[in-house]
C-alpha cells in the first residue's frame, strides 16, 4: 500500500461565497470536493450565529499541485477583497492517485 503525495486545499469562507468558489473549482476540473457548515471568528468578526447569510462554509478539495496554484490565484483575485475568507494548503497522501487527476 503506497501513498502518493498530493495537495489538500482548504477554504473557510462566508456562505454566500460558496457558489463562486465551487464554480472556480469546477472550471479547473477538480475531481471533487467536500464541504460543511462551520462557525468562526476572524478579521470580519464572529460568524455563524444567526442569519443564514452569516454562516461560514468550509470547503476541502484534494488536487494536483498544478491545479492548486491556478485555483488559489483565481480565488485570491476574485474573492479575497469582498468576502470573509481564509485558505490554506496541506500536504497529504492518497492511495488512488488517479481519482484526483
Amino acid at each position, binding site marked *: 500500500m503506497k501513498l502518493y503525495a498530493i495537495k489538500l486545499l482548504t477554504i473557510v469562507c462566508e456562505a454566500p461565497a460558496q457558489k463562486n468558489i465551487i464554480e472556480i473549482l469546477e472550471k479547473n476540473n477538480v475531481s471533487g470536493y467536500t464541504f460543511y457548515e462551520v462557525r468562526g471568528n476572524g478579521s470580519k468578526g464572529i460568524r455563524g450565529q444567526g442569519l*443564514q*447569510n452569516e454562516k461560514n462554509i468550509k470547503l476541502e478539495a484534494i488536487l494536483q499541485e498544478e491545479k492548486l496554484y491556478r485555483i488559489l490565484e483565481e480565488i485570491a483575485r476574485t474573492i479575497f477583497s469582498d468576502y470573509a475568507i481564509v485558505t490554506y494548503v496541506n500536504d497529504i497522501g492518497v492511495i488512488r492517485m488517479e481519482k484526483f487527476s
Partner: protein
Amino acid sequence: MDIVAIIQSSILTPLILFFILGIVATRIKSDLKIPDAISEFLPIYLLAVIGLHGGLEMRKMGFDNMIVPILVAVGLSVAMTLNHYQILRRLGKFNIFDSYAIAAAYGSVGATSFSVGLSFLKTQNQPSEGFMAVILAVLEPVSLILCVFLVNMSITKNQKSKHYETKQILTDVKQVPSDDSIAVEIGEVRDEASMKQVLQNTMAGKAIVILLGSIIIGYVIGEGGFQSIKLGFEDMFFPALVIFLIEMGIITGQKLEDVKKAGKFLIIFSVAVPTFNGIVGVVVSTYIGLSIGGSVLLGLLFASASFIAAPSVLRTAIRKANPGLYITSALGITFPFNMIVLLPAMFIFSTVLHDAGTLDLSRYFVDGLK
C-alpha cells in the same frame, strides 16, 4: 376607538413581548437560542400561511380590483427606492455600493413585519384585502432588481468611459478590507454578478416561490380543501410567529452592538425613512380605496426593510456593499421601531383617514386629564 387601548394592545402582545425577551436574553449573555432548523423552517411556514390565506381570499373576492393597487405599489416602491438612494448617496455620503444596497433593502419588504401586521389587525378585528399577499410577493424583488441593475449600469459606464474614474469608485468604497496582500485590479472586478444570475436568484428565492406557490394553491383548493389543514396553517400561525420572534429578538440583540458602528446618519435614516414611507403608503392606499386594514398593511410594507430575503440576494449581487450596514439598520433599528411605534401609529392614522369619527379623541383626552 381608544388610543391607549390600541397602543397597549399592540405592544403588550405575546409577539412583541417575546421579541423583547429575545433581545434581553442576548443582552444578559444568555445561551437562549432557537435551533437553526426551526428558525429556518418558520419563515417558510409563515409565508405558506400568508400565501394560502391570500389565495383563499382572492378566490372569494376575485382579482378585479387588485390590478390598480399592485401597479400603484410597484410605482411607489420604485420611487421610494430611488429616493432612498439619493438620500444615502447625497446626504449620507455613502459609496454607490452601500447606497444602492441599503436603498434596495428598504425598498424591498419584510415578511416578518407583514406577519406581525396581520396579527395586529386580527387583534383589532380589522379585515384586510386578500391580495395583500400578492403585493408582498410582487414588492419583494422590485427594488432589489432595480438597484442591482443600476449598480451594474454605473460600473459598466465608468469602466467604459473613463478608466481612472472607475478607480475612484473603488477607492470610494469605505469597507474594502485592508488586509489583502493581493491588489484587486479594477479591470478584474467581476461585473457584480450578471443580471441574469440575479434575476434567477431573486425570482427563484425560497420566499417568493413558497409565497406565490401557496397563493396559487390556496386559490385552487378553496375553503373546502383548506379545512383539512386549517389547524396547522391557520390556528398555529400566531404561536409559530411567537417562536420566530424570539429568535429575531435574539439576533436583533446581537445586532444592537453594531448599531453604533452604523453611524448617526444611518440611524436617523432607519427611523425617518420608514415613517415617511409608511405615511405615504397609508395615504395613497386610502386614496385608491383600500380598507383600513389594507392601508395599514401596505403602509407597513413600504415602511419595512427586508432583513432575510433581500440581504441573501444583495450579499452576492452587490458584493462590494457592507452587509453590516443594511442588516444592522433593517433588523436592529427599523424592525423594532416599526413593530412598536409605527404599526399602531399607522393604524390610528389609517382609521382617522378612513373615518375621523371612529377615533374617540375626546375620551382619550378626558382619560388623560383624570
